[in-house]
């Protein structure tokens, strides 16, 4: 088959498959790369993201972990200091809270404190749960906890291509990288390169172009924001939509440039709004583009209470595309009637799929 045909052949896979593929390719290319995780070798394979790896690479490179998150995170750091390149995976973000001591005190600082002599190349994959009543301690995004710490890098893919490319970029990085994967993004399908091509961990990507408002979203909320943007566009309101992708180091040049043009800014967090990533973006962008601002910036994020389990409570907990469209419309100064029509259309689309599952194939329980 000619090369051009191979490259152009459509190849649609979901993000979970893309993550598994990236991991396998990195392990084939570099014997220092290995996987550690509770359930890394079990029959479910961390939502399929590690399935089949132990069969190919064996139990010394796809290592089942004791339930001792801080301990094995420190062990990963020690191995990394000695030249290994571990990939750590937690099936929920919350499990990594038990490992914050090692991540914050050792992983994030050891390169800096050693004057650059120590390297701790490790990737920590964290999965955000949502839906099916995951409840208060199985659904938190918590990216700001990690993004607050100098020395860590934090990425949040929202597509299958980014899941593969950012993971490969994270594995190549010589320092600690936290990759936060939304459980619902695992189902996101798209064109993914078959080759192992690492993406630089270098900042946001513009997904929609327009002059009406600048919108910055993270992770799964990017999928909701795209729906909102497309509905607004059908009413003639074109927004500049950025998927943030890389939360630390935070590169906002393109977003600042956009706001200088649009004069308007809306952020859409996957986590809580208060002290969230949106707060940081609004603060920095406003400081740099204040004279261009035509309206007060707005943040969308989770409300000021923990995630409840019951569907009726979760329904009002998660912001969805109609709320995003309504907020953007208000900031952009659209007539109320136009906004109402857009929300109506979005609500119809939204109500055609179940509230609390990511994909029609999903039957629970995780």
């Amino acid at each position, binding site marked *: 088959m000619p090369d051009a045909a191979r490259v152009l052949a459509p190849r649609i896979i979901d993000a979970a498959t893309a993550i598994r593929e990236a991991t396998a390719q990195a392990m084939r290319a570099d014997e220092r790369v290995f996987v550690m995780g509770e359930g890394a070798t079990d029959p479910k394979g961390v939502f399929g993201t590690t399935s089949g790896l132990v069969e190919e690479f064996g139990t010394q490179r796809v290592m089942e972990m*004791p339930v001792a998150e801080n301990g*094995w995170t420190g062990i990963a750091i*020690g*191995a990394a200091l000695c030249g290994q390149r571990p990939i750590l995976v937690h099936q929920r973000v919350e499990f990594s809270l038990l490992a914050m001591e090692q991540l914050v005190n*050792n992983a994030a600082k050891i390169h800096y404190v*050693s004057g650059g002599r120590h390297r*701790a190349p490790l990737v920590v994959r964290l999965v955000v749960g949502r839906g099916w009543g995951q409840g208060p301690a199985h659904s938190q995004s918590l990216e700001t906890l990690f993004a607050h710490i100098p020395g860590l890098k934090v990425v949040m893919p929202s597509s299958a291509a980014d899941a593969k490319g950012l993971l490969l970029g994270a594995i190549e990085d010589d320092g600690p990288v936290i990759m936060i994967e939304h459980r619902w993004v695992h189902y996101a399908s798209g064109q993914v390169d078959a080759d192992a091509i690492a993406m630089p961990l270098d900042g946001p990507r513009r997904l929609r172009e327009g002059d009406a408002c600048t919108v910055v979203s993270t992770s799964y909320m990017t999928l909701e924001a795209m729906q909102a943007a497309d509905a607004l566009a059908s009413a003639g309101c074109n927004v500049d939509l950025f998927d943030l992708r890389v939360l630390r*180091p935070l590169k906002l040049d393109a977003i600042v440039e956009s706001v200088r043009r649009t004069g308007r800014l809306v952020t859409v967090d996957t986590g809580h709004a208060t002290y969230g990533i949106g707060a940081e973006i609004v603060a920095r962008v406003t400081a740099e583009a204040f004279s261009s601002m035509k309206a007060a910036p707005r943040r969308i994020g989770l409300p000021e209470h923990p995630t409840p389990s019951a569907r009726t409570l979760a329904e009002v907990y998660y912001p969805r595309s109609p709320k995003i469209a309504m907020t953007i419309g208000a900031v952009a100064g659209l007539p109320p009637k136009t906004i109402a029509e857009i929300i109506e259309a979005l609500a119809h689309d939204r109500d055609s799929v179940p509230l609390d599952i990511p994909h029609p194939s999903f039957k629970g329980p995780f």
Partner: protein
Amino acid sequence: MNDTTLTSVTDPATRLQLFRSMLRIRRIEEAVARRYGEQRMRCPVHLSIGQEAAAVGACAVLRPTDQIVSTHRCHGHYLAKGGDLHAMIAELYGKVTGCCGGRGGSMHLFDPDAGVLASVPIVGSNVPLGVGAALAAKQRKRPDVAVAFFGDGAFEEGAVHEAANFAGVHRLPMIFVLENNLYSVYTPLDQRQPTRDGEPMAGFAKVHGLFFEHIDGNDVVAVHEAMGRAVVRARRSDGPSLLVVDTYRFLEHCGASDDDHLGYRPVGELAAWRDRCPIERMRAELREADELDGATERAFESAIAAEIDDAFTAADAAPYPAAHTAMEAVHA
């Protein structure tokens, strides 16, 4: 041949070297204590005066490619393993020639050339790093071992048990050296841990599948011999070991002074332990055996004093890191 005969320390030259290494650490830390009041070493210091035998006896068995991890009280381990003295003193002064370039201070000593992987000032936090070094040695099929030094306080930390459990599961070339100095800062062991039957902390080894030895930590030869047995086991993949070594800190937890006036130690306890000073004991033993004479000891003292003077002079003269470098090396 059993492990004991393999590692018995009868060679006079080795015994003399153990003595000299302890004496050197003592004199270096005494110099730190003496000059601390000048307020030019502007970082916390945790001196190991009284505990030198544990560091020296354990590290004497190791190769430069073996890795150790230490704690906030890391001077003795760092020096015993061969860490560079100039880089240590300069680090205490916050100078650019320090092992961390002035970014870490006394609690972050490391020396990659000597196999001092890292020192970490969060209690217990260093122990998983050591197990990670043992895992890397196994994965990379290298004959190296890893050693984690920690104290009786760290024994209370979950991370230590988590790391030991992992080392046991994977039979890693790992040695845990628990220096029991009876206190966590000012709080005695009996307020922090229940009474246990038999050997102190032996149960720890049993539940995690470790070999266990309980040693007089102020007897440098005993530590050396036990460590030798542990290293032999580790190098031939028999599994990890825990050595509990009993010792005692003469000075305050943090700082350069005596603290007996605070009253947290029972009356007479400090004096009793000073009578068991590891250096005095070794000196007496060597004198008794005619393995150390006055001229040799004076030669040790003068060479050590000269080395210390050099290190302090160099540290004093070295530049501080420039303010504009503060943003460097945040990311690798």
